[in-house]
C-alpha cells in the first residue's frame, strides 16, 4: 500500500508530510522533469508505509509541468490511498480536486488543514455532515502544531472508493 499526499499548492501539504514521516526523508528527482516529489515512510499499524508528497495541483487537468507530474504520480499508483489536503478556508476549491480524485476511483481521506485559520475567520465546517455526504473520512487538522494528525492516520484504513453518483444523490442532485 502506498499513500499519496495531494492538494493545492500552499495548503500545508508539506507540513502534513513532515508530521507523518519525520526528518529523514529520501528525496528523489522525478526523471525527465525539474519537478521534485518527496518520498518518505510512516508507521501505520506497526508497518512502514511509503508515502509520497505529490507536487501541488489545482485539478487533474494539468496546466503546467508540476501538475503534470502530480497527475502522472496518481495514474502510476493505482493502488494508492490518497490523503487530500484541503485548506479549510477554501473548502470549495479543495473539494473540486478531492471530487476529481474520488471520481477516478481512489480511496480518499480528506484532511481539513489550517483548521485554526478557518476558526479565526469564523468559518465553520460541519465535519460530520461532510463525511456523511462524501462517504469518506474527513479530519480537521492543524499540521504546524500536529493537531489532528493522529486521528488522520487512524482513519486511513476507513478510506474506500466511493461512487460519485452516491455523493450526488446525498447532496440532493445536480443541475445539468
Amino acid at each position, binding site marked *: 500500500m502506498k499513500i499519496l499526499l495531494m492538494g493545492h499548492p500552499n495548503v500545508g501539504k508539506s507540513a502534513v508530510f513532515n508530521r507523518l514521516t519525520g526528518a529523514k526523508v529520501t528525496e528523489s528527482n522525478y526523471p525527465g522533469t525539474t519537478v521534485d516529489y518527496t518520498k518518505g515512510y510512516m508507521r501505520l499499524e506497526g508497518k512502514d508505509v511509503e508515502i509520497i508528497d505529490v507536487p501541488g495541483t489545482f485539478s487533474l487537468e494539468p496546466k503546467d509541468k508540476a501538475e503534470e507530474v502530480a497527475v502522472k504520480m496518481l495514474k502510476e499508483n493505482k493502488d494508492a490511498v490518497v490523503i487530500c489536503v484541503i485548506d479549510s478556508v477554501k473548502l470549495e476549491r479543495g473539494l473540486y480536486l478531492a471530487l476529481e480524485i474520488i471520481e477516478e476511483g481512489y480511496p480518499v481521506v480528506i484532511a481539513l488543514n489550517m483548521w485554526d485559520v478557518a476558526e*479565526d475567520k469564523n468559518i*465553520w465546517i460541519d465535519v460530520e455532515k461532510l463525511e456523511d455526504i462524501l462517504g469518506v473520512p474527513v479530519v480537521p487538522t492543524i499540521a504546524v502544531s500536529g493537531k489532528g494528525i493522529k486521528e488522520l492516520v487512524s482513519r486511513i484504513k476507513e478510506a474506500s472508493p466511493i461512487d460519485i453518483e452516491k455523493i450526488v444523490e446525498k447532496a440532493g442532485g445536480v443541475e445539468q
Partner: protein
Amino acid sequence: MSEEAKFMIGRIYFAIFGLVVLGIGAVEILLGVTGRSLEWGIMEMSGEFLLWRGLILFFAGAFYLSSIKNFADIHQQAKIVMASLMIWIIAGMQIFSMILESIPGGEEGGWFNTFEGFLASYSAPYIPSLFLLPFSLVVLYYIKLQKEAEEPINQWEKEERYE
C-alpha cells in the same frame, strides 16, 4: 463605562507599561552582556541570570506593545496575559527565594534566622520585576472582561469544536 472605553484605556495603559518593561529589559540585557550591574535608589539590576531576566522582560515588553493594534481581539488579549505571566514567573520566583533565604540562620548563626535578620532579608534594593508586578496585575481585569464576553456559544458550534 462602555466596552470600547475600557479597551481604549487598556490600550494606552499597556502601551506605556510595555515601553517601560521593554526598556528595563533592554538595560538588563546590556548590563548582562557587559557583566556590570546597576543600583538606582531601591532598584537594582544585578545578580545571576541578569541577562536571562533581561531577555524575558524585553520580550514581555514587546508582547505588550504588539498587542496595541486591535487591542480588544482575543489573540491580542492573550498576548498581554502571556507577557504578564512572564513577569509573574520572574517576580514570583524572586519572592519565593527571598522567603526561603530569610528563614535559615546562615553559616555562622543558629538553626533559624534572628528576627532582625529575617526582616533584613526583605529590605531594598529589589529587582525591577518586583516593581513591575503590581502594574501587570491590571491584566486580571481584562481577563475578567474576556470571560464575561466568552458566553454564549451556540449549540451547532459547540459540536464542531473538536478539542
